């Protein structure tokens, strides 16, 4: 059965009215990414991440009162039982988010009792109360990092077997780019990260690699059909554009699903879905504009090496 791709570059251009040469402008995309990456990385080095109690330990109480309350009343009450920490009000000042050191049960009950008498009646059924010992937080990070590292090595192995080693490295670099963008943006804005952030980063990890491999598959297919005179650059540009509809449609559907969670999902999932939104958007972007251009750069360099440093037309 013939499963050919008769489309030439002209064919691709005809289907996509907005066609522009992605590969030729690859340094633009690299620059654009660096524009986001560099501030993120600097911020990561300078101020780090705003780690929630999941990572550094502590207690966090999310309390809903029956009436609006004031920040001062809560802070004073905390002081009266010998505690301090930031208080954040929301929901028309009826919800208070209190962060403090890791509390023993007795201390926690003392605090709740004091809040009940001094600040106002609280709704026990809507209480959220997290306590994490410092050792546990480190474990979460360490476990996640190990798992990611091992997954990365295995994925490089698989892509190398099914494609080529350069494909694997390009895909992983694009993946690293996506994760760095998400982590960098969260550092830049000092949004607090908790254990669900790890899940969000994992989602980005899974999505980004999947999205990239789909495009690489088309490059692999077209690479096999290349004629001697064909330029690698044009072939890759064609491949990216051939899969463009799919790339756009898929990321649109996923982004809309995430957007509805972001808007309708409530406070507890806000930052979680935001991290995924940024990550999936970046993942879709990098599959088109980062992963394939990196692959092109590597292919070009390899070819030069193979020809003994002599520049060739690719």
């Amino acid at each position: 059965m013939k499963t050919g791709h008769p489309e030439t570059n002209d064919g691709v251009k005809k289907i996509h009215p907005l066609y522009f040469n992605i590969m030729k402008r690859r340094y633009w995309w690299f620059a654009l990414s660096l524009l986001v990456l560099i501030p993120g990385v600097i911020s990561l080095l300078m101020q780090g991440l705003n780690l929630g109690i999941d990572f550094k330990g502590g207690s966090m109480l999310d309390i809903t009162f029956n009436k609006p309350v004031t920040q001062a009343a809560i802070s004073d009450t905390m002081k009266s039982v010998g505690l301090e920490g930031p208080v954040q009000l929301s929901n028309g000042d009826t919800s208070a988010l209190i962060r403090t050191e890791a509390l023993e049960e007795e201390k926690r009950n003392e605090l709740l009792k004091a809040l009940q008498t001094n600040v106002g009646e609280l709704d026990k059924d809507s209480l959220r109360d997290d306590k994490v010992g410092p050792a546990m937080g480190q474990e979460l990070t360490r476990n996640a990092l190990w798992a990611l590292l091992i997954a990365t090595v295995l994925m490089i192995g698989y892509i190398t077997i099914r494609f080529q080693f350069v494909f694997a490295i390009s895909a992983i670099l694009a993946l690293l780019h996506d994760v760095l963008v998400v982590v960098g943006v969260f550092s830049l804005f000092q949004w607090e990260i908790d254990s669900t952030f790890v899940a969000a980063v994992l989602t980005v990890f899974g999505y980004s690699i999947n999205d990239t491999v789909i495009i690489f598959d088309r490059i692999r297919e077209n690479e096999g059909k290349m004629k001697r005179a064909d330029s690698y650059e044009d072939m890759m540009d064609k491949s990216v554009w051939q899969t463009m509809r799919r790339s756009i449609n898929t990321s649109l559907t996923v982004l809309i699903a995430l957007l509805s969670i972001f808007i309708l999902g409530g406070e507890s999932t806000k930052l979680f879905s935001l991290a995924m939104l940024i990550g999936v958007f970046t993942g879709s972007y990098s599959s088109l504009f980062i992963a394939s251009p990196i692959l092109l750069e590597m292919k070009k360099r390899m070819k030069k090496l193979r020809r003994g440093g002599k520049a060739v037309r690719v």
Partner: protein
Amino acid sequence: MRRGNIIKLVALVLLVAVAVGLSIKPLVDPEKGILLGLDLRGGVHLVLQAEPNEDGTPITRDDIDKAKAIIEKRVNDLGVSEPIVQADYNKNRIVIDLAGVTDPDKAVDILKTTAKLTFRDPQGNIVLEGDDLKDAKGGQGQQQGYVVNLTFSSEGAKKFGDITTQLVGQRLGVYLDDDLLTNPTVNTPILNGQAEITGYGTLEDAANHAVLMRSGSLPVSMSISEKRQVGASLGVDSLNRSINAGLYGLIFIFVFMLAFYRIPGAVANFSLFVYGLIVLWIFWMFRVVLTLPGIAGFILSVGMAVDFNIIIYERIKEEIRAGKSLRAGVESGFSRAFITVIDAHVTTLIAALTLFYFGTGAIQGFALTLGVGIVVTLFTGITFTRQVLRWIVGISPKMNPTWFGVRRDV
């Protein structure tokens, strides 16, 4: 041929509709349906860390086992539907998950008590230890109020008889470590090993004390190193919001697929129902606990399921544009798209499996839902979607390609 295919398609639609209709109730049943994590219905997650013994002796596997058994006993008294108590021998920890517990405060109160039970005379001397107590039960008193009924072992009964004989008219304190639990007065010598502590206002109070006395002391002292407590209504609120958000997301995807891909879009939406049904039943079958990160994994897998369809249809469009007939386009589009998808999905599956194997808690929940989702996506894609599309293009060879979203003129 033509009529046969239409009948098959109609029968399939009806079958799926019936399956969806019949599945809703058992899947969302609060008792036997899909398990929800505590972030979605309230509850407590506790990690108890065994503290090193003061005298420096190492904590043995046996200690942890004993502690686990005692904690399990206490947990069972709380009446939670599916409590999870796991021991981590490497780190000397016990992990407790009580999703759906009605009074999390009380649960924590009972579980955190790791103390040693003793009976003491008014001077504070220990006269009897918890080991001698065989059973303790809360119940209705003979006169009024509620009581805790104590049963001692035969040896304990003898000791208790001696003590109560000595202490008639005095108080006999019941202590957990150094905290006084209750301080009853000895009315008469009790020689048969059956004692009754009176004076409880409610049955619940009596039962709580009974649990603490009965489960005795833990072999090692344990502290709470992690606690996550979510109020019931907060959990329900999160669940409702997630469902609501998911629903709107799905509706958009349905509309989008229909508008963009016409007939295949309808097939994709139809397949998505089948996909969702299979995934949810797998969750149900393997007692997968659904949490917020788990839902994220599920959404990602839905995205991939839709992606599989999009890849196939774009490929079919390409093949048709290249001059193939609808039927040949569907066949070659499918086989080519499958190669594309298999590599992408295997790569992601590798990530999911690694994360499941090496991860903990939230990471595992995410990896599991993602992994199940990927496998089911491939399965429904190559069996269900493909067959349905074959039947559709088999209806008539003169079907208009624009129904497949292809513009012939370009």
